[in-house]
């Protein structure tokens, strides 16, 4: 075929792919059409890959076939076998691989061209891709409890980061002045980017993970976008920018839900500085038998899940209890805080897995005005997102964070292992309120005990 025509077909294919990605993202934002949206987006990816294979630059099919086969097998197995509770770490891994791939693509671009513009794009892609790759690795470690989920802080951390950043800028300038695929400055840039990725995510604690995950998601898009600039490929630029923008929006939503700036999440280990008012008082424990009596009489019940529900894998028994209550005529809802769990929408996915219909899940702003009409609010493994100190105690590290106002409900059950403070290390005055009852123990066992009471 005429090479000019071929190029035209390939670019036409890229336009089709871009349209499919855009439609896919649009449909992904409505529950009813989301699945179709994802399929359209996958079709777009198929078109993009298929027309790329027409390129005349591609002569070595064996390498491609072997590598695609390896990647596909890993991808299929991972997506099928990994439990849904492990979804945050899986998203982190996929993010990291995308960033790593963009880093490598940009590196290879230097073998084709060492034009100044290419060199700058390569540096951008390698830095963003490297930070994404290494940062996602650390995020995976924290989410899968290989690494501690507490913020890791060391003295002079900011000094080290600043120094590394200066080294990075220096190497980048020297590299761009004399670009080459085997330049020592290039190796230094890769090394520093990886170290920066590790050092930026290490100090971030478990509860801030929703912000980090969506930020890394944004980075993986931006890395692809920069790689597209390096190899002069429009579909990479468009898709990468779309993902980058989407990730930034999501990151912003997460930050707002914690009333913190992105800089605050990234640069200050949570709970390290401020000291909240110590809460003194007497918590009121309750047995499953007594809790059953209260629940049985309730006309409206709302469940407020947190990361603890994911850890205890309690979503199925929660739904079972919810259904039992509904069958008795109670109005049952689930109140979801935007940053509950370890990634955006974490609780929604877990409850969907347990067959809870999504229209029964209420967002924080929808449930709060109605909270005073709720008979029983059942808090399952959530802590900071229901802590009234965020509203009342201006000395508290979480002061100003919007919370689900469970304390306004007539009765609050808190399912918890002990009275220990939440992730942020802040005491929770909710536990000592007159209308709060503590149901101590493993969330799954406590709810199972309640279900047994209902069935007897």
């Amino acid at each position, binding site marked *: 075929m005429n090479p000019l025509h071929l190029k035209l077909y390939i670019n036409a294919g890229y336009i089709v792919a871009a349209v499919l990605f855009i439609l896919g993202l649009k449909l992904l934002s409505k529950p009813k059409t989301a699945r179709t949206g*994802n399929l359209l987006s996958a079709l777009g990816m198929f078109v993009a890959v298929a027309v790329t*294979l027409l*390129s005349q630059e591609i*002569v070595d099919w064996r*390498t491609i076939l072997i590598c695609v086969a390896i990647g596909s097998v890993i*991808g299929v197995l991972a997506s099928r076998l990994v439990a849904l509770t492990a979804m945050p770490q899986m998203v982190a891994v996929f993010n990291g*691989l995308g960033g790593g791939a963009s880093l*490598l693509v940009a590196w290879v671009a230097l073998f084709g061209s060492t034009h100044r513009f290419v060199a700058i794009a390569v540096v951008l892609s390698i830095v963003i891709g490297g930070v994404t790759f290494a940062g996602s690795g650390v995020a995976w470690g924290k989410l899968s409890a290989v690494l501690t989920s507490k913020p890791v802080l060391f003295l002079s951390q900011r000094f080290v980061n600043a120094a590394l950043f200066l080294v990075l800028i220096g190497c980048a300038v020297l590299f761009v002045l004399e670009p080459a695929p085997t330049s020592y400055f290039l190796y230094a840039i890769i090394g520093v980017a990886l170290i920066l990725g590790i050092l930026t995510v290490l100090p971030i604690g478990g509860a801030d993970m929703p912000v980090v995950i969506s930020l890394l998601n944004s980075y993986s898009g931006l890395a692809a976008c920069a790689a597209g600039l390096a190899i002069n*490929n429009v579909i990479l630029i468009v898709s990468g920018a779309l993902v980058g923008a989407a990730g930034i929006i999501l990151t912003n939503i997460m930050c707002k839900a914690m009333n913190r700036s992105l800089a605050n999440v990234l640069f200050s280990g949570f709970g390290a500085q401020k000291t909240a008012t110590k809460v003194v008082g007497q918590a009121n424990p309750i047995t499953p038998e007594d809790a059953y009596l209260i629940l049985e009489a309730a006309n409206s019940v709302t469940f407020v899940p947190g990361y603890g529900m994911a850890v205890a894998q309690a979503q199925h028994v929660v739904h079972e209890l919810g259904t039992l209550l509904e069958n008795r005529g109670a109005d049952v809802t689930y109140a979801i805080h935007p940053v509950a769990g370890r990634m955006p929408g974490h609780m929604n996915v877990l409850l969907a897995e347990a067959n809870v219909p999504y*229209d029964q899940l209420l967002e924080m702003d929808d449930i709060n005005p109605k909270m005073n009409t709720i008979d029983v609010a059942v808090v399952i493994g959530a802590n900071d997102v229901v802590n009234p100190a965020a509203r009342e105690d201006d000395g508290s590290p979480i002061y100003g964070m919007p919370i689900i106002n469970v304390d306004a409900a007539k009765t609050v059950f808190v399912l918890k292992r002990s009275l220990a403070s939440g992730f942020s290390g802040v005491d929770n005055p909710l536990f000592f309120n007159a209308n709060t009852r503590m149901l101590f123990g493993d969330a799954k066992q406590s709810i199972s005990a309640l279900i047994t009471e209902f069935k007897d």
Partner: protein
Amino acid sequence: MEVVLLALILVLAIFLGFELISKVPATLHTPLMSGANAISGITLVGALLAAGTGSATPALATWLGAGAVIFATVNVVGGYLVTDRMLGLFKQRAKPTDKEK
């Protein structure tokens, strides 16, 4: 000119991304994120071009490209499948009135 054109495309795509995502219900945050992540696997296109050049480039380039293809393929295949798996779980409350329609 070429650079200006690429920059224009970049800026427009960013604005489009902001517009598309600004109103997403919280329920869909995770699938949206993993679906968007699968799209960022588009770097696979670049990886294929990098890995397939054969003897036209040094062996190092082919090896780097091969690694990129594996990484990006996992990202694409895994990302789309896991998003589909999650979305398959999302159900609306069964309403008898809907069935009658």
